[in-house]
């Protein structure tokens, strides 16, 4: 079970932010816009991460990751991180925008 720890942290992030989609206009409802915002940034950060792993700037505890990895020992969880965290941030920003607009209209 411990090997799923990193995956579970990411799953929790997705689960906690999912209800924020109720705010308009939404992020999942603008999936293509989200993809075009997240993918270019994720690509750059994955490359940075690959270099950092290669240079042993940081490493991953094998006890807490699934063991599925990309070249240069990059855990699959780390790739997912760069998709999940930006998605959570977009959902937060979408919700905050919607709430502030509601206040400003009063």
């Amino acid at each position, binding site marked *: 079970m411990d090997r799923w720890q990193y995956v579970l942290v990411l799953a929790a*992030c997705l689960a906690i932010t999912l209800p924020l989609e109720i705010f308009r206009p939404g992020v999942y409802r603008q999936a293509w816009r989200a993809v075009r915002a997240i993918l270019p940034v994720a690509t750059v950060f994955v490359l940075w991460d690959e270099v950092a792993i290669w240079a042993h*700037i940081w490493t991953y505890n094998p006890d807490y990751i699934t063991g599925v990895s990309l070249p240069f020992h990059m855990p699959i969880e780390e790739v997912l991180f760069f998709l999940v*965290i930006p998605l959570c941030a977009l959902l937060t920003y979408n919700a905050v925008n919607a709430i502030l607009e509601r206040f400003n209209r009063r």
Partner: protein
Amino acid sequence: MTVLGYTVPAVLSVLIVCGLELTALRTGLFRRPAYWLSMVIVVGFQSLADGWLTKLSAPIVVYDSRQTLGVRFPFDIPIEDFLFGFALVTAVLLLWERQRECR
């Protein structure tokens, strides 16, 4: 030997992202209260998730101590992670905002 292989790129990433907005993208994101409020919320939740990933008692991510300043707060999060997170999230929000203008 301390080489700050995390600190230096983390600072650079923040400067690059801010520089891109101020010189090229010009989305106006930094003038939106919603952005700054979102960042406060993001940092709050980052502390929880990142805290779990980096806690020294059972770390999922292990840092070479020579590559960071060694300041780990809150919990055991290397402060460099907050620069890294700021650059990651801000860059995504900038590209998101840029598409608002294009439509």
